[in-house]
């Protein structure tokens, strides 16, 4: 059971590959899938987690001494049955080797941390991307956070694995301009085995979002495929997805090459090592791109996508009848188009 108030495990700034412009990323904790190539394994569990980063540890023994439950027999090995999560070890660790993933934060708090970046979002055509983990696990919170940001004229995008309950997502979707939709394994059974869940609902959601996306007040949808040699780059997989995308009228896709940057995180969390995976070569990336384009799908590198016009640019503020300073800011942020109509007429109150 997922708590209604989510945990955020990181805010990252100056990100260039997760939507248009310069963006800040809000990482939510908790994910319904368990893909073996995941680079953010700290996002899997919805609850907060204690981790140990050996590279930072200076072996001072403070954590062991201070643990009231004697749950740390030695540095770096925590007896999870004894530990009651008091975080004394984390507070007292001088180096940050004992560390906590996931803290509860209010939308206001997150907005305040992001606020200094707002002007940069405006100059760069960027904004905020919700990611994780899975932002859709927390439809209420995400919607509230997104709403406060949009009130300030901030462009919001979301990265999702697509495994969500669409009905509960409507309020959030209204706030978003762009959904970066991850697709992985086309075959249903293989997907279940590899990622731990059936992909029927993912496909259904993708279809529904795309169909809604052409209407007003719904975000544009842009699919992305993590390219993992031997796992997602097979001909069948690519053909399967290409056909599916085509049937939805989608002719574009981002290929996200696998990168082992998060490999050490498993150790931090005491998880068993993941499978041996390999970074795709340039040739492999090109081959995959070639297969897609043969099927009529153009592929792009992260950060180089030509996102549709109506999914970029500053967010439209809230309708006038809403209280607060929103109105002034909206005008300021909207900036450029002066013809009284947004590029797509999106400024009609939603």
């Amino acid at each position, binding site marked *: 059971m997922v708590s209604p108030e989510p945990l955020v495990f990181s805010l990252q700034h*100056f990100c260039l590959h997760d939507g248009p412009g310069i963006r800040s990323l809000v990482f939510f904790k908790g994910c319904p899938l368990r893909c073996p190539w995941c680079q953010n394994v700290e996002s899997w569990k919805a609850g907060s987690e204690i981790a140990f980063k050996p590279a930072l540890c200076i072996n001072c023994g403070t954590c062991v001494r201070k643990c009231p439950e004697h749950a740390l027999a030695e540095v770096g090995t925590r007896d999870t049955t004894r530990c009651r999560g008091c975080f004394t070890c984390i507070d007292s660790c001088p180096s940050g080797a004992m560390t906590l993933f996931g803290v509860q934060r209010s939308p206001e708090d997150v907005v305040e941390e992001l606020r200094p970046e707002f002007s940069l979002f405006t100059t760069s055509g960027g904004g905020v991307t919700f990611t994780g983990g899975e932002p859709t696990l927390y439809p209420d919170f995400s919607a509230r956070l997104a709403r406060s940001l949009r009130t300030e004229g901030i462009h919001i995008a979301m990265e999702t694995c697509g495994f969500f309950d669409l009905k509960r997502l409507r309020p959030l979707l209204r706030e978003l301009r762009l959904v970066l939709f991850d697709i992985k394994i086309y075959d249903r059974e293989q997907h279940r085995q590899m990622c731990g869940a059936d992909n029927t609902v993912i496909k259904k959601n993708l279809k529904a979002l795309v169909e809604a996306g052409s209407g007003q007040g719904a975000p544009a949808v842009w699919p992305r495929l993590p390219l993992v040699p031997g796992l997602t780059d097979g001909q069948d997989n690519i053909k399967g997805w290409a056909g599916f995308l085509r049937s939805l009228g989608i002719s574009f896709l981002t290929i996200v090459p696998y990168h082992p940057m998060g490999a050490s995180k498993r150790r931090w969390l005491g998880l068993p090592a993941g499978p041996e995976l390999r970074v795709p070569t340039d040739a492999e990336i090109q081959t995959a791109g070639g297969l897609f384009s043969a099927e009529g799908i153009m592929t792009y590198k992260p950060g180089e996508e030509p996102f549709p016009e109506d999914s970029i640019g500053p967010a439209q503020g809230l309708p006038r009848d809403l209280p607060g300073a929103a109105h002034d800011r909206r005008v300021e942020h909207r900036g450029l188009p002066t013809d009284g109509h947004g590029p797509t007429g999106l400024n009609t109150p939603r």
Partner: protein
Amino acid sequence: MAGLPRFSASLTSAAVAPVEGFTPPTPRIAAIRAKLLSTPYSICLERPKLMEEFWSSREGRRSAKLEHPLVHRALTLQYIFSHRKPRIYDDEIIIGNMTSKRIAANYYIEGGSINILEDFARLGKRTIPLKLTIQETAGVLHLGLKNAFKSVGAKALLKPGRLSYFLDFFRAKRHFVTEEAGIGHQVGNYWMVVHEGLRGPYGEAKQRLEEGRLADGSRLDADQRAFFSSVLITIDGIRKMAENLAAEAEHLAQMKGESEQRRAELLAAAAACRRVPFEPARTYLEGLQATWLIHMALNLEDFEQGLSFGRMDQILLPLYRSDVELGRLNTGQATEMTACFCLKTCETMPLYSQRVDQFFSGNGVAQAFTLGGTDEKGNDLTNELSGLILDAYAQVLTREPAVHVRIHPATPEWFFQKSVELLQMGTSRPSFFGDTAVVRALQEAGMTREHARDYAVIGCVEMASQGRTYNSSDAALFNLPLCLELALNEGRRFHGKARIEGRRRFGAPTPPVSTMKTFDDVLDAFRAQVRHGVDDMVKVIGWLEEVYRTIRPTPVNSILTEGCLETGKDVTWGGGLYDYTSIQAAGLADAGDSLYALKRIIFDQKRFSLDEFVGILQDNFRGREDLRVELASKLPRYGNGDPDVDHMTQLAADAFSDALSAHKNSRGGRYVPGFYSMTCHIGFGRVTGALPNGRPAGRRLSNGLAPVDGCDRMGPTAVLRSAASLDSRKWMNCHALNLKFDRQIVQGKTGRKALVSLLKNYFALGGMQVQVNILDTETLKAAKRDPASYPGIVVRVAGYCAYFNDLQPAVQDEIIERTAHGIT
């Protein structure tokens, strides 16, 4: 790329269109560049030999005895200018050799160069080898020893009561007075050189002497008469140097086997040198040639550091446009000429011993172009030549020259894009300056707004209103964090190398920490130490500047500086319209973070008594690694957009600015601060004890305005926010803020767009300066292992670019280790 011209030849700058991509170097440029990159460095002994030759001649002995020192100096320079051997290298179309070797450091016997004797036994085996014949090596030794007492430093300091200051040159801790080596650092009046020619000042000086009066009617005194004579003598020397070059070019053109094309090029160069710099330039080529000849003269006059060209995209524009209009020049040719000019700047380098090199690693001298910016009313002046000079540099991508661009709210988008595109090529060029903040600081330092808006960058980041300023910038570097160490130990270092030195008080006698009850007490002691250190440094600089006036006046520099001909004074005598001495502080972020840590741990949280904590620092955190790590990794740091810590950084900066601005220099000008450190933060770091921010003794200090390495936890946007939040009004000498990005992060269109936005935003917040290194660590590691395979990698060290291979291993490591922004 075909399809030239890429820039409209129209006379309105608005018509300029942005164009993607740079053209590859022409065969000529590629050939000269390859030659330069494969040439070993050396030392040139021609200048000192000519000097000695003159001094021992009958005329030299006479003038030394009978003439005014200004005249004697001018005669010496004239002798050097007119007797040096002209050398013209293959393929060159801008001519004029910097030294007698293809690439060499000048040996300046008046100061500085003598430090090379420390490396005497291993010139060829240094980290950066110097190639000399056995005779030459002996010559260096002979020259060095014979003239050891003729340097400015020796003359000023080898006196009773000053000896310990002299020794300070060899044990730099609190400050490093570079002015001992030379003053250099200038952006002369190249507008006058190009458009009026030296005929202007020559005629003026002549008239003054004939009338016996200044333009304002006052009678000339003996010094003023000597000054005007020195102008005439020096200009005669420069003319002779130009003529000798012309003759050599003509001679080469006669040689059998020269192609028709080469013959024509040589004759064109000869014709230019027969005319400029005495007469005004009529063509773009003549404009470049005039500038180059004057630049050579400046190099031969004082020393090589920071001699800069100013706003060449303004100065040469009329010539460029008229050439294009008359159909005698196209953009391709102009770009090639400019690239040739750029390559000429590679012929010089400074002479540093390995010891000194840890303070100024990189062999850079920073001969700078300043591009873009506004007119005196604030209107944009960016034009097609601004872009063309970027194009030219893109063909050479060498350590020299430095390229700086001015950014203001109306900077055209294409120029911004193009500048960033050049940056993406990986040479860390150009660096960016925010007009709003810079102009404000210059006005604060006494310039009129109009003059401030005509600023150009001297060398790395220093400032001049071009042709009107004698900045004597970079006169010294100052170790700010050491003042905190002294403040916590009654003016003594925590641990000197020797016991005696450790006990020796060399700071102010501030109270013992046991009597410090509040944070303000600490702050007061810190300020007192900064004042004491500054007082000391200023004293030394004053002595040096005195000696300068007699043995090393600089008539060429004076001809190029407004005010001198009006007042009849050499710049070293205070003739410049604006006169400053500027000093840079190193380790600002370390100082700020340490003040913050003290306040938080000792006075807010009361975790230790100050006494106890200082004991831990004195022991360099021995047995308290946990505390050190906690201080270093858990406390807020400057560079993360945290107003509280950033405020402490401001306090540390203010302590320095206030201490410095309390002084006038020996010419009556102001002392002005700047915050950058070349590589002094490494040298200073070695002698600085443990700091309250968890920095262990000996570790390098923070660099320029940058956060402490690895402490920029929130990414580059927060670094820029913190930097822009500081009040830079007093920083007439600017600062260096280094941002490093992994190449992967900022490549392609996406990276370019992001960088442009990032920089725009920074300057909109009031940012003053920023420079970006785009590196990938893998390449650098490989280059460190195998330098021979990576000859041309340029990185930016503090304010200037250097070949990675020229850097000391410790500096290489720093470059490799330092946060490559964007990597998680």
